[in-house]
């Protein structure tokens, strides 16, 4: 059953621009709440910069901790934008229309947040430029150009550039619409961003071609980004990291968590901006079905990773697997991953009744991301908490309050940036919604009237 209502063009414009001109009390609560957490985030980082990395739980051999886990997590979330936008655009899935903009914006903000983590993790971020430029190839002093730690920034920056271009291209018609209906600084801003858009045939054609081309081009980048992040770990010889499955496993995990984050965002937008006419129950239904497939695919890779880590029966691998699966606190993480990442949400999503319940979709999507954060931690940390032939010592890793604040703050940062974005730009693509209204028709089949989508042959 579709809940589509026929909406006039003027009505769509007015409703979708509403968050730009009115700030509801809930939005104020969001700004203030997220701003407060953000202040803690800034304080924690400043504290760490002032006192050095000693205020964190990082020490030999646990040199990668919460910040790197969080980096991997946010890179994962960023996969939602391309997954939703590019793939669904290429496959002409109609239900993509209300979610693409938010997903693309989330991609960009989560990528920016992710990139922040390795930089602050250095402890002296201002020295990053000094280390990186000019890049020292000759004396082999700095990380090898052939190493994944160098591939990482290249891939992520390419992805960020591509995603930004992708988002911007799809925003141009809306910028022109905003330009023609605003005054003051907003008008100046939208005029610059609209690039002289008049909506003539040639411009629409170029915009459509650019959208399709960028969708196609960004897909390999999207796959490569998380693959390369996975190789940060997998090309090393640390037991349980040196696994051939890491690249596709990280990518499918990223899609699982990213698409779940889009569900969270859809529910929040529906409640916060009163977008019931646009983010409808059928959209939750469709994305819920997609999540069943993605979640089951993720479970398969998760099990492959576990089973084939045990398969060689190597003492060191077994030791860490034992540690991961059965010892405190990682046994709790294992349970969290299984239960929150799959066994609660997916059986719920199997039922259409629950897929069409916004509250249930919201909470299950939150559960998935709790499970996926736990999974990132579970994948990265146990391998480091061990003594090997080539390490001097071993020790537990206990994250400090500073690191916890940074993790918490990163969520506030993304949320805050999304709220700011929705105050300046429409959070749902206005022109795509209008286009969708043109394509939607009704059809008499026997005694029933069914909703229909225009298909071109």
């Amino acid at each position, binding site marked *: *059953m*579709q809940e589509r209502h026929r909406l006039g063009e003027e009505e769509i414009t007015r409703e979708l621009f509403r968050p730009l001109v009115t700030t509801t009390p809930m939005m104020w609560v969001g700004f203030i709440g997220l701003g407060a957490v953000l202040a803690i985030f800034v304080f924690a980082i400043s504290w760490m910069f002032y006192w050095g990395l000693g205020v964190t739980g990082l020490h030999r051999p646990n040199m990668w901790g919460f910040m790197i886990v969080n980096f991997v997590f946010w890179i994962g979330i960023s996969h939602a934008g391309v997954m939703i936008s590019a793939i669904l655009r290429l496959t002409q899935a109609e239900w993509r229309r209300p979610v693409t903009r938010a997903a693309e914006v989330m991609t960009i903000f989560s990528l920016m947040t992710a990139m922040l983590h390795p930089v602050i993790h250095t402890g002296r971020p201002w020295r990053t430029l000094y280390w990186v430029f000019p890049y020292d190839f000759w004396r082999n002093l700095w990380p090898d150009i052939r190493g994944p730690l160098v591939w990482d920034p290249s891939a992520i920056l390419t992805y960020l550039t591509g995603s930004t271009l992708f988002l911007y291209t799809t925003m141009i018609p809306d910028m022109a619409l905003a330009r023609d209906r605003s005054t003051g600084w907003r008008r100046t801003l939208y005029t610059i961003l609209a690039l002289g858009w008049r909506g003539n045939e040639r411009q629409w054609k170029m915009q459509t071609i650019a959208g399709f081309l960028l969708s196609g081009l960004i897909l*390999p980048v999207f*796959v490569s980004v998380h*693959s390369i992040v996975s*190789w940060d770990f*997998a*090309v090393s*010889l640390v037991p349980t990291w*040196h*696994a*051939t*499955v*890491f*690249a*596709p496993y990280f990518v499918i995990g990223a899609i699982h968590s990213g698409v779940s984050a889009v569900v969270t965002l859809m529910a929040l937008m529906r409640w916060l901006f009163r977008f019931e006419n646009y983010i409808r129950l*059928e959209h939750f*239904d469709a994305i819920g*079905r997609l999540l069943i*497939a993605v979640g*089951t695919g993720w479970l*398969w*890779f998760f099990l*492959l*990773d576990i*089973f*084939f*880590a*045990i*398969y*060689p*029966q190597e003492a060191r691998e077994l030791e860490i697997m034992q540690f991961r699966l059965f010892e405190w606190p990682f046994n709790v993480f294992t349970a969290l991953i299984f239960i929150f990442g799959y066994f609660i949400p997916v059986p719920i999503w199997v039922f259409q009744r629950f897929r069409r319940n916004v509250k249930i979709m919201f909470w299950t999507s939150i559960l998935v991301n709790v499970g996926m954060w736990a999974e990132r931690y579970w994948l990265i940390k146990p391998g480091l908490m061990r003594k090997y032939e080539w390490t001097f010592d071993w020790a537990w890793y206990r994250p400090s309050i500073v690191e916890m604040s940074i993790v918490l703050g990163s969520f506030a940062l993304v949320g805050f940036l999304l709220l700011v974005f929705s105050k300046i730009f429409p959070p749902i693509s206005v022109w795509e919604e209008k286009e969708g209204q*043109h394509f939607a*028709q009704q*059809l008499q*089949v*026997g005694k029933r009237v*069914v*909703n*229909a*989508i*225009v*298909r*071109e*042959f």
Partner: protein
Amino acid sequence: MATHGHAHGHELQRTWELAPADVLNAGLRWVRSIGTGRRTLVLVCAGLFALGVLAILAFPLRQGFAERQAWTYVAVAFLYLMSTAAAAPALSTALRVARSHWRRPVNRASEIWAVTLIIPFLLYLILLPTFPGTEDRLSIWFGWPLSPWLWGAILLLALTGAGYLFAWFSSLPDLAIVRDHGSPAQRRLAAWLSRGWIGSHRQWRFYEKVVNNIGVLYVLIYVPVMTVLASDFIIALIPGYFTAVFPAYFTITSFQAGIALTIVTMAVLRRWGGQAEYLGREQFWALGKMLLAFSLLWFYFWWSEFIIFWYGRMPHEIQVLKLLMAETYRWPFILSFAMNFALPLLILMWNPIRRSITGPTVVAVIVLVGNLIDRIRLTSAAFSQPDAALLGHAHKLKELPAAYVPGIADMVILVGMVAGALTLVLWAARYLTFPSVAEVVGGLWLRAHKPFKHARVIVIGKTE
């Protein structure tokens, strides 16, 4: 009959212009007109299958189960059928779940391959005794009692059962048509199989609810089965081959071959089966895109393994690379790389080629050959290892074995088993309409012609 319309420069497919009666007549024409060509083909295939069975009895069976290398091409035939014929119905499920309308005439071409599952099941049963028990060797069964024999057989049996159930259930309405309109010989079996189908509202509701679920069940069994086969037939038989991504590679490349098999089936049906009105450019274009995507995935999954081994430089990993890619099976690997990835990419990256009938068909044939070469490469490498190299937990490939060169008997076995599968498909095609009348007419009910700006478009209802 309405004229062909043009929108966005490509031809309107004739299927959407037809009346339900036209589709019914086409389906009946298919079941009624079994020409001499089809009969001859069945006889030739059945003859080749018989030769293949004789070759198995005369060669590997006479050498005994302990000589695993003699069974290499029986295993190749088994894995090839699992990678192609058994994968094709999974495509149908994916398309059903995605609810795309273009898939309606395609489903039958992919689902019909489920009838061949009995052959790989029987091959698996005769291959089982060639495997040593798992108590004292590395395997994904971890020494579980009666593994891999009993549990592997149960998995294969479940897949075979689900496959037949899917093929049968998805054909129920069409079987009822054959029961009511077919020849007396066809009617008897069709009447038994159609189980009193009269097309009542209740029956249709049940059918629509259950058919997708059986398809999903099939896929849910297929993936673990391929995971286990990848492990038992390849990974566990190559000392030092410690890889978690290989089962995923094996499964994904099987889906690729399943798509290729469906495209080739469609091309044959279009050329010789009078299905041009149903299997048009729209279907080939859509499946061509899927084939391109899966060819890219072939590379991605291969690369995911290769880079870890190559970068890690562990001695046992380098040995495996030498065996499978760089030295012993270098040429099969190069051919496999070219035919599963490079050529499909270079050909299908061009939209005009993707949007043709010939382009995707040629690439599908290339992929089917490439997949066979890949399975030969992997199986030959795995079946060359003596039991002594596998027992215990040392599991390191000390010396590279020589490449296995197939003999005439091996070729007869391989061709015979593939021909056996074809025989079953041709036999089943006597009782099933092409195209699937229920599917295509179901789409036609939801169709309407409407003006849209300056174009004439077809509107297809989405029932949800």
